[in-house]
């Protein structure tokens, strides 16, 4: 039996909104008789200062240990009244609202007596519930300081800088030997035509030299476990076999036998998207950060052919080569994680009609970006890989691998957003460099939707770029050149466009990070990108508290949007980390250890990875930093061990009974 309670009920007139319909006096008189109710009073405006003072006075004087305020929807003043009750010395979570305005007087204003009757029922229901409430403490939990940013593209770099400048300790983890990501490989950025490296390298240097950013390159997150207020990451740093003594003289790369004419092994340069070969010991690109050479053990003769070849070690003046380096394992504890793993370019080989992979002169936009780079493989001119001749006629094809059929495993159904502007950018860069080059862009819908995009698109027309509305039927060979069959909707003519080079605007697809996402318990949306908490209202957080997403990892976007999203993700992370403490929502699940049979049913239904069975104790433990209080677990738990505070079975059953026609006193 619950012990003797001193409950107070405060009925609000709401200036007539309630009292014009509900006979407040009758409700008060019926409630007074209820067991445990030591006070039932009413007032014109409970939410006014005077109303609040009355509430506090009664709580203090009568030592009330439970209050029901019958007024408007709890969404309006529940917090206010609870705060006032706390100031008066009563535990705020012993106060409940009875909604007798929106859900009573407003809705039944033509049936005054029925509304009064209903008001009695609603108040009685809440009184019975309050009788079963327990006081709750609002706890706080420490949050591990520090943020891990996974992926050092423009998004990861920007988020890291903002957080570090805010004073947070950031660990920036990058899989490839250098930071910079895809942006560093694009020659210029639309629509401003800024040189990509000029805008990016200052940020790269700032990240590299920032005392609060710990840069971990050539490293992958092997495992990421979440525990209350903390993420424990296991990072494996692959060995570069080159020590810090390296002075960057490049002799090792010059002498390395791999990918030379006679070499049995040759490696396509990832940086140049396969246009050139690279040695086993290499620096991805001149402004790479950190400025450290790396030995690719998969292709290096020393590792692959019995350790005989030591050419690089012999020629190295700084003796910086060390074949004995081992992978390093780094254990990292952080409060928040930002996933900024970016995108990779779609491989158009499955689309046989375009001939990528079969015809050497069929390229992708990223390969053309590398060609347009003055330091790139072709020193800035787009030329035919078959014979190196500069291309006089270039045909670009849009939507390659994007806007595909639903459920088609070979292509993506989404639009990759940026390829139209990339094509316009490359087309006008080519026209500026070699004006008499013929450039055609074959498109379905040219999507120049952003700020300055239309002007950029129209400017390219002024430079003589030709736009053909229609995707091609086939790219075929005609002697040394290619021939593109396309029907142009604008002129209604069927064209056969001779082309030295055909450029496919290939889709953006997510970088393969399935293991990382699995260990972070993140799911992906149908298009394969990281699933944000809510596509419209919350695109930077994820379902896992403390994990944020930024940049192309969450979906195709251009550099501008990546930076804005990185800023938002950084701010969300900063807010989440707060002052190192996290106030916990008290209305979450808790486990009665005596009843728990460790059957895992709660764990199976929990969407927020918030409950786990402790292997030693064999009792389910709720991680109050992750639990959202939805209560799914309470329904599947066979013994009723787990319940959500203030929504326990006894409390809900009490209000059902109180409101039921055959009211049975508890």
């Amino acid at each position, binding site marked *: 039996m619950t012990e003797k309670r001193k409950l107070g009920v405060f009925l609000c007139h709401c200036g007539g909104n309630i009292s014009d319909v509900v006979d407040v006096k009758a409700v008060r008189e019926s409630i007074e008789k209820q067991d445990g109710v030591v006070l039932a009073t009413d007032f014109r405006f409970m939410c006014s200062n005077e109303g609040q003072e009355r509430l506090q006075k009664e709580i203090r004087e009568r030592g009330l240990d439970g209050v029901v305020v019958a007024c408007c929807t709890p969404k309006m003043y529940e917090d206010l009244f609870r705060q006032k009750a706390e100031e008066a010395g009563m535990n705020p979570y012993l106060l409940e609202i009875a909604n007798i305005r929106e859900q009573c007087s407003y809705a039944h204003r033509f049936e005054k007596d029925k509304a009064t009757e209903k008001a009695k029922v609603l108040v009685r229901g809440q009184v019975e519930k309050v009788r079963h409430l327990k006081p709750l403490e609002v706890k706080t939990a420490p949050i591990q300081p520090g943020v891990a940013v996974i992926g050092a593209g423009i998004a990861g770099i920007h988020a890291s800088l903002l957080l570090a400048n805010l004073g947070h300790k950031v660990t920036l983890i990058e899989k490839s030997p250098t930071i910079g990501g895809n942006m560093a490989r694009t020659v210029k950025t639309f629509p401003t035509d800024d040189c990509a490296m000029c805008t990016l390298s200052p940020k790269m240097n700032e990240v590299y030299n920032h005392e609060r950013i710990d840069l971990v390159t050539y490293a992958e997150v092997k495992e990421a476990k979440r525990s209350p207020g903390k993420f424990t990451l296991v990072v494996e740093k692959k060995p570069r076999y080159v020590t810090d003594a390296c002075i960057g003289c490049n002799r090792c790369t010059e002498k390395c036998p791999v990918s030379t004419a006679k070499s049995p092994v040759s490696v396509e340069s990832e940086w140049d998207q396969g246009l050139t070969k690279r040695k086993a010991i290499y620096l991805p690109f001149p402004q790479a950060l950190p400025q450290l050479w790396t030995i690719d053990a998969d292709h290096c003769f020393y590792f692959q052919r019995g350790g005989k070849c030591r050419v690089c070690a012999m020629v190295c003046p700084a003796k910086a080569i060390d074949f004995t380096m081992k992978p390093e394992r780094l254990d990292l504890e952080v409060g928040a994680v930002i996933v900024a793993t970016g995108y990779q370019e779609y491989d158009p080989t499955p689309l*046989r*009609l375009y*001939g990528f992979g*079969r015809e050497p002169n069929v390229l992708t936009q990223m390969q053309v970006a590398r060609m347009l780079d003055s330091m790139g493989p072709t020193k800035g001119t787009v030329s035919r890989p078959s014979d190196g001749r500069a291309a006089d006629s270039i045909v670009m094809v849009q939507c390659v691998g994007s806007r595909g059929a639903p459920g088609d495993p070979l292509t993506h159904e989404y639009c990759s957003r940026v390829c139209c502007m990339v094509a316009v950018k490359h087309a006008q860069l080519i026209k500026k460099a070699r004006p008499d080059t013929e450039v055609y862009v074959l498109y379905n819908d040219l999507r120049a939707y952003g700020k300055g995009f239309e002007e950029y698109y129209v400017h390219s027309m002024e430079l003589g770029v030709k736009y053909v509305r229609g995707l091609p039927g*086939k790219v*075929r060979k*005609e002697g040394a050149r290619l021939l593109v069959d396309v029907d142009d909707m604008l002129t209604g003519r069927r064209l056969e466009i001779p082309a030295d080079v055909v450029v496919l605007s290939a889709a953006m697809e997510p970088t393969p990070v399935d293991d990382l996402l699995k260990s972070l318990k993140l799911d992906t949306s149908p298009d394969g990108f990281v699933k944000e908490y809510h596509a419209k209202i919350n695109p930077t957080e994820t379902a896992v508290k403390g994990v944020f997403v930024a940049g192309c990892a969450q979906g195709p976007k251009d550099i501008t949007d990546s930076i804005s999203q990185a800023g938002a993700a950084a701010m969300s992370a900063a807010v989440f980390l707060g002052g190192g403490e996290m106030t916990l929502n008290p209305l979450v699940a808790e486990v009665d250890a005596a009843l728990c049979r460790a059957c895992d049913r709660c764990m199976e239904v929990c969407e927020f990875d918030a409950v786990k069975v402790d292997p030693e104790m064999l009792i389910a433990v709720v991680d109050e930093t992750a639990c959202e209080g939805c209560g799914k677990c309470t329904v599947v738990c066979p013994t009723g061990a787990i319940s959500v505070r203030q929504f326990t079975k006894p409390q809900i059953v009490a209000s059902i009974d109180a409101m039921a026609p055959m009211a049975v006193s508890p």
Partner: protein
Amino acid sequence: MRYAYFPGCVATDSCGELDQATRAVAAHLGIELVDLEEAACCGAGNLQEANPKAALALNARTLSMAEAQGVDLLTVCGTCQMYLARANRELQDPATREKVNAVLARVDRRYEGRVRVRHLLQVLLEDIGPRKLAANVRRPLGDLNVGAFYGCHLLRAPGSEAFDDPEEPRRIEELITVLGGRPVTYGGRTSCCGFHVLTVREDLALRMAGGELLEAKAAGAQVLATPCPLCHLVLDAYQGRAGKAVGAQAGLPILHLSQLVGLALGIDPERLGVKRHLVPVAPVVRALEEREVLRA
């Protein structure tokens, strides 16, 4: 090496020589052909448009005949391969198969979906195999420039993408090489001969065929090899009218794969029906006979 033989309609009527040649080649290579005299027409797209359900039922009946013999179905025509393979794919779905079997039951037949529909080209290259074929060559094609004309349906029949790349096929070229010939490639080898609009828009068919013939001629082809009697009919019988439509005669003899293989194997040209062609094949036959190698 036993197949249910489905020659189709044109290969046993106006192009009867192709049925003759196929039987001669099969006998020569030890392939047993089980005749399906009672098999109905594959629909060739026309019946699929006029009465799709009947087309599916008739093809299911043909497939059930082959299944009854426990053998795969051999076609020698691109269009038959397309529509029989398409029906076969639809019949892999259990619900559709049950529906069709309910109809087949009226004529006490049933199809379980176990038959594979295979074209002569697949059988020659995959089941017989290049080595055995080469060993049987008595008249190597020598320095004869042979152009392949794939036509459209064989490349786009369901399941054909596993056998050959529909955009840049090379299987007929492979066959020509195995037979000792010199394959010649040209742009039009994978486009369409226009047979299916011959009675509706003959001008289109003639201009298509005419264009492709000239392209093959320009590429140096001396004879064309095609896997389909419909292309064979248009390219050979209508070559004169096609030439008029595009203003130049190609004068290219046309051989169906069965005839090309037959000649290479040393089979008597009479039995390959080359006399029935409108564009004389005699010069090709003479060139081959001079270099005939009488192997033991």
